[in-house]
């Protein structure tokens, strides 16, 4: 029998068992939709990581104390100057980090602040929305001025950020004049992100807020291909300059590795979700197998008749296998469509999902594989029936 006619008979059989077909297909629909969405969410996640880190210079090297809490031999501004002298390092600057209460008008918030040098702006690809950034005069004169992130500005002004410009911000009971507001940056891997942070001159942070508790980290910027050499230089300088513990008491991290790590986290997440989807499909495959077994039992007498009028083993096998594949493929197509329909819904819940052709293909491939794999045994059993046993079956 020709494939076309076999397919026709299969479609007639499926058509006359609509409910059964639908129930069988349900698992495949869910499984395929899940796979499609997982692939889409995985892509979305990766895109988000890339987006978040796009503002982070991959040549950035962070040097920080290895221990939390009070440090006996902290990094200094001078360390940063020595780093900058290395030919492998374009720029190096110390950063002081602290947190405290920030008050403006009726609003207050606990937020972190950074004491920084003007070079910080460029090094972190930050851009100014309103006003200006900190400059060298602020630094040398220890001016009590601040530039704040877009998120923090909105928070303190109840959604009217420009209002805070040139006004006084109360930071740990010290008054700082807000001279600039940053554009919204998105999180860049720092614990709190730039958007919810205030930036003040390094010298001012040291003098007015931290005093002897000042325990800076240093960011050094190198070219991507000199990062490793720069890390070497930093280690050497630290060993020479911090005689008590040398470089051992500091952690040296480069942003490139962090990006890779974040990407891998996103990928691991997708894989995890994907494995869930595969489990769903396996379960639905067992469902298909069950239904196919029942179908074979139901139609045993018919199979006997078909064999009596000349159906070959492979034609019976083909018929039942095609039935399983058609059912699962139909489920797959429906699943992909439902998955596609869920993308805007996910967007509503702020989950970025990027549909892709590969997602469609992977989904369909899995659904058809499920159909073939779990449909094969019942189909083979049907084909292998002795014609006389099949005919006698009641």
């Amino acid at each position: 029998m020709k494939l076309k006619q076999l397919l026709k008979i299969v479609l007639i059989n499926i058509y006359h068992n609509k409910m059964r077909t639908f129930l069988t297909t349900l698992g495949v629909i869910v499984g395929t939709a899940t796979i499609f969405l997982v692939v889409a969410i995985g892509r979305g996640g990766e895109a988000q990581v890339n987006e978040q880190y796009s503002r982070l210079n991959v040549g950035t090297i962070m040097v920080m104390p290895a221990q939390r809490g009070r440090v006996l031999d902290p990094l200094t501004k001078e360390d940063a100057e020595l780093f900058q002298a290395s030919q492998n390092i374009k720029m190096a600057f110390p950063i002081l980090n602290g947190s405290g209460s920030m008050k403006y008008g009726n609003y207050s918030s606990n937020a972190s602040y950074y004491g920084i040098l003007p070079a910080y702006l460029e090094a972190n690809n930050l851009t100014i929305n309103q006003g200006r950034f900190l400059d060298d005069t602020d630094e040398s004169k220890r001016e009590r001025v601040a530039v704040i992130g877009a998120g923090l500005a909105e928070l303190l002004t109840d959604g009217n950020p420009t209002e805070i410009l040139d006004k006084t911000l109360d930071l740990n009971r010290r008054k700082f004049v807000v001279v600039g507001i940053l554009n919204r940056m998105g999180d860049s891997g720092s614990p709190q992100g730039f958007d919810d942070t205030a930036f003040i001159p390094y010298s001012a942070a040291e003098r007015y807020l931290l005093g002897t508790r000042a325990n800076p980290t240093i960011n050094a910027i190198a070219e991507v291909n000199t990062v490793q050499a720069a890390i070497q230089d930093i280690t050497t300088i630290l060993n020479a300059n911090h005689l008590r513990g040398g470089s051992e008491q500091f952690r040296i991290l480069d942003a490139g590795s962090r990006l890779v790590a974040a990407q891998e986290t996103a990928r691991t997440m997708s894989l995890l979700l994907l494995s869930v989807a595969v489990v769903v499909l396996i379960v639905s495959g067992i469902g298909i197998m069950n239904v196919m077994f029942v179908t074979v039992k139901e139609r045993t007498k018919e199979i006997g008749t078909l064999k009596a009028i000349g159906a070959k083993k492979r034609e019976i096998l083909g018929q039942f296998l095609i039935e399983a594949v058609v059912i699962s493929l139909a489920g797959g197509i429906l699943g992909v469509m439902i998955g596609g329909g869920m993308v805007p819904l996910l967007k509503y819940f702020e989950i970025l999902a990027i549909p892709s052709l590969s997602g469609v293909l992977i989904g369909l491939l899995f659904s058809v594989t499920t159909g073939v794999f779990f449909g094969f045994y019942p189909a083979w059993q049907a084909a292998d029936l002795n014609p006389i046993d099949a005919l006698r079956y009641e």
Partner: protein
Amino acid sequence: MNNNGRCIIDARNIVKIYQTPYEELKVLDDISIKVMENDFTAILGPSGSGKSTLMNVLGCLDLPTMGEYFLDGVDILKAKDDQLADIRNNKIGFVFQKFNLLPRLSALQNVMLPLLYRGVEEDEAREIAKEKLSLLGLGDRLTHRPNELSGGQQQRVSIARAIVGNPPLLLADEPTGNLDSKSSKDAIEILKELNKEGNTIIVITHDNEVAEQTKKVVFIRDGRLSQEG
């Protein structure tokens, strides 16, 4: 017996033994039978006589334990699975007691099936099937499904399916077993007519009245054949 014609069935010393866990059942015991072209033979026997088993062996649905069987010159015992399927498709038309029509296919589709399994193009198969159904008075029932047809009509569809591929042998297993007396008569008349047109027919039955309508009767009892009852 017409000894000048072509020999359709030549079965020699057929033995069929069923192995049960407790005993060996010899259902067919040294049966030899010859059927020539255009014969119309009844195999008559009570239930349990082995007539169904004989029909299955003659119909190539089951293989004998011992013996030789040539169907239209083909050595059945040497045939493989696929070849047996081809033989059933090309050489035999089955008419079943319970019609055995496929419930989800129309009368026309049911009759087309043997041709499709033979590889005939769909359009051609449809034309031939239509013709056979019209011949049997079902020209206006082509698209009906079996459950929309009476028993007599279903049996006529089943006969149409049996003859659609012009097989050299028609095997009818209790063809009137599930029919009322009028439909039974019709069915027998159809078989007689087909025989007149040159078809070779074997009817397996327990019913003397059916057997009387054929040209030749052989009796089967306890797995053995005899010419006398």
